[in-house]
């Protein structure tokens, strides 16, 4: 049953076509159409999984085109990694779409929302099953396009329109890197297939390292890694289920997936891996520290995503292939859960400022409970999902001798536990801080929350020592066997870190204990400002990149207006003037035309007579 894999992206695409064409007629039926499509895809993914277990593998649907001597196939990649992604994307995507039916109820562009979501799913699934760089790149751009459409879905809001543009332009920088990487790879090795990556790694050392770094730039753009992470927090302007989808299943997962997919390239040169790990570490720490002070419920989660993606990259970079992909999967579950919970909260209180919420636990029990489970999962409290995968990354970093990166990962874990607990304590506990009337969300929203909560809690076991690292074996992370050894000390350390973070947050936000001496607090004010302003990265970009570029644009605009346009208009004006001069020839008087005809006849007689009849 492996060879139904190529049908998986087809169903969401079909749903996209139906919804975009007949959305006006279908009205509220659009949601179920999209949900049904991704549910079918999920079932197909299960079949593919089954087929793969019984010995199936990648296959090709035929040759698409020939690049010189290299045939480019309509290949379908079926291996552990892609099946894992297929299952996660279709499963979480389906739940998010069910949730969206409730969340987007009454939106004037309800049908278009589901059309975009389905296209998003189709692009992502296509990306996952692509077996060569060209197909991957096509779907890669499709994902980028859909993220643009969905982030700026409420384009009436200027902030949303800007955020969509920012996401598009920022990821485009990464896409350029990826494109250059693809070109360079083809130029040196004459192959674009993922199947060949293992063989070609010999002999092209340095060039392949450059290719790897270029590919990683693309991945960094999509996965919001430093320094291209700026778009992700702004992407919170989109509808919350979209954020969930982007953060959990589709958009940002694509970057990590790309690195995992092209992992043989990175293994060629330690430098490439080092880059991945360092960038991942920087992103993880940077975003985590920003998240500790942010006051917007969705932005905290957004920075948390950047941070967690950083951890995945770090995991991949230190050689923990299985650890990184494992974290990608567990993160998909609990981050989707967290975003959907946040959406449920926002749906109830109509604000995103956490300091206006509070005491929601008693009002929204389902949401609050699931939110709590998600938080514990991401904080890494055993035995929830995040614990196992984070533990894997820490082990990988430690055992492969990356002491500094290990420190970074530990610190990030601590900060993660801290800011997530802060979020929970402020939003769900304490006293209501403003006059809100929260209510529990409808069943279409709470049921997906509950399902996701169960998975967020339990999905970690598939990669835990208790299950003999079944997941790691499945995605084929043989090289990290050392890292996946049961490591009691590491587990204890990881647990202690998480509990310490939660405890600190408990002290500060529930017991209101002043943990720092008074003098220290004022000294930390500067740091607080720095974090609140997100290290001024947006401002730096604005001053050094955006403004000069806009200045250049303005100059170009002037040139375009003054030189190019005038030139074109000048040509047009010249023709117009010439026509004005020639126009009187057409008098409209029949007799003038006839006279010209007679003159013509005379000329004809004169010349023909001379030439032919020699008069």
């Amino acid at each position, binding site marked *: 049953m492996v060879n139904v894999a190529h049908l998986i992206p087809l169903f969401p695409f079909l749903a996209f076509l139906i919804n975009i064409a007949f959305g006006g007629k279908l009205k509220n039926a659009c949601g179920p159409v999209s949900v049904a499509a991704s549910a079918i895809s999920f079932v197909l993914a299960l079949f593919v999984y089954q087929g793969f277990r019984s010995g199936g593998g990648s296959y090709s649907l035929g040759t698409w085109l020939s690049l010189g001597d290299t045939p480019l196939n309509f290949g379908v990649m079926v291996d552990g990694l892609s099946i894992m992604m297929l299952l996660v994307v279709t499963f979480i995507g389906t739940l998010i779409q069910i949730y969206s039916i409730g969340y987007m109820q009454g939106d004037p562009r309800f049908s278009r929302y589901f059309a975009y979501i389905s296209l998003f799913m189709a692009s992502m699934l296509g990306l996952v099953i692509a077996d060569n760089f060209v197909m991957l790149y096509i779907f890669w751009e499709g994902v980028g396009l859909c993220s643009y459409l969905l982030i700026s879905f409420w384009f009436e809001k200027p902030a949303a329109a800007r955020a969509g543009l920012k996401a598009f332009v920022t990821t485009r920088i990464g896409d350029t890197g990826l494109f250059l990487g693809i070109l360079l790879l083809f130029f040196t090795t004459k192959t674009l297939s993922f199947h060949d990556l293992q063989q070609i790694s010999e002999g092209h050392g340095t060039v392949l390292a450059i290719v790897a770094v270029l590919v990683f730039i693309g991945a960094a753009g999509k996965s919001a890694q430093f320094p291209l992470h700026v778009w992700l927090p702004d992407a919170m302007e989109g509808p919350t289920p979209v954020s969930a989808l982007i953060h959990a299943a589709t958009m940002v997962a694509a970057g990590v997936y790309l690195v995992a997919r092209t992992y043989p390239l990175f293994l060629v040169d330690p430098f490439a891996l080092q880059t991945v790990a360092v960038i991942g570490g920087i992103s993880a720490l940077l975003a985590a520290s920003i998240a500790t002070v942010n006051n917007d419920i969705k932005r905290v989660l957004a920075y948390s995503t950047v941070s967690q993606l950083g951890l995945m990259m770090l995991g991949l970079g230190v050689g923990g292939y299985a650890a990184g992909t494992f974290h990608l999967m567990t993160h998909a579950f609990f981050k989707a859960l967290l975003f959907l919970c946040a959406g449920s909260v926002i749906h109830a209180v109509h604000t995103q400022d956490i300091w206006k919420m509070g005491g929601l636990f008693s009002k929204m029990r389902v949401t609050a409970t699931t939110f709590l489970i998600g938080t514990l999962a991401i904080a890494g409290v055993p035995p929830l999902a995040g614990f196992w995968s984070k533990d894997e990354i820490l082990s990988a970093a430690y055992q492969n001798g990356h002491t500094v990166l290990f420190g970074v990962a530990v610190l990030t874990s601590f900060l993660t536990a801290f800011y997530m607990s802060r979020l929970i304590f402020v939003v769900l506990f304490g006293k209501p801080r403003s006059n809100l009337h929260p209510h529990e969300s409808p069943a279409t929203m709470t049921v997906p929350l509950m399902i996701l909560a169960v998975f967020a809690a339990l999905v970690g076991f598939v990669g835990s020592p208790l299950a003999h690292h079944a997941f790691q074996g499945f995605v084929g992370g043989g090289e990290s066997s050392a890292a996946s050894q049961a490591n009691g000390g590491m587990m204890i350390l990881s647990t202690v870190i998480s509990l310490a973070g939660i405890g600190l947050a408990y002290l500060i936000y529930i017991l209101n204990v002043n943990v720092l001496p008074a003098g220290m607090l004022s000294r930390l004010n500067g740091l607080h400002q720095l974090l609140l302003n997100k290290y001024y990265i947006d401002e730096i970009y604005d001053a050094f990149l955006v403004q000069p570029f806009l200045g250049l644009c303005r100059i170009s605009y002037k040139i375009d207006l003054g030189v190019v346009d005038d030139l074109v208009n000048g040509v047009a004006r010249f023709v117009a003037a010439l026509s004005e001069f020639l126009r009187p020839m*057409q*008098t409209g008087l*029949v007799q003038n035309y006839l006279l010209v005809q007679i003159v013509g006849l005379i000329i004809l007689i004169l010349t023909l007579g001379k030439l032919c009849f020699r008069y």
Partner: protein
Amino acid sequence: MIPLSYIVALSAFLFCVGVFGVLTRRNAIGILMSVELILNAANINLVAFNRYSNGTDALGQVFSLFVIAIAAAGSVVGLVLIIAIYRNGKSIFVDKYDLMKW
């Protein structure tokens, strides 16, 4: 009898006078009259060549009969058109009707 070329010359003259009329008359009826002159010039030729040919075929005369019939049909339709135009625009001066330009 006189040489054929005399008759042909006469017909050529009549043709040129007709063309002149078509070119210069402002009145559409005048143009139609000039067209009749041109047709007559052609007819003269046909009859003359028929008379001056060797055979016993009546082609030339038959043809001029046809021309006369067609000319009659043509001038009938033409005159009706002129009257229709006159009814619309209160004028049959062709230089008033320059709608064909750009």
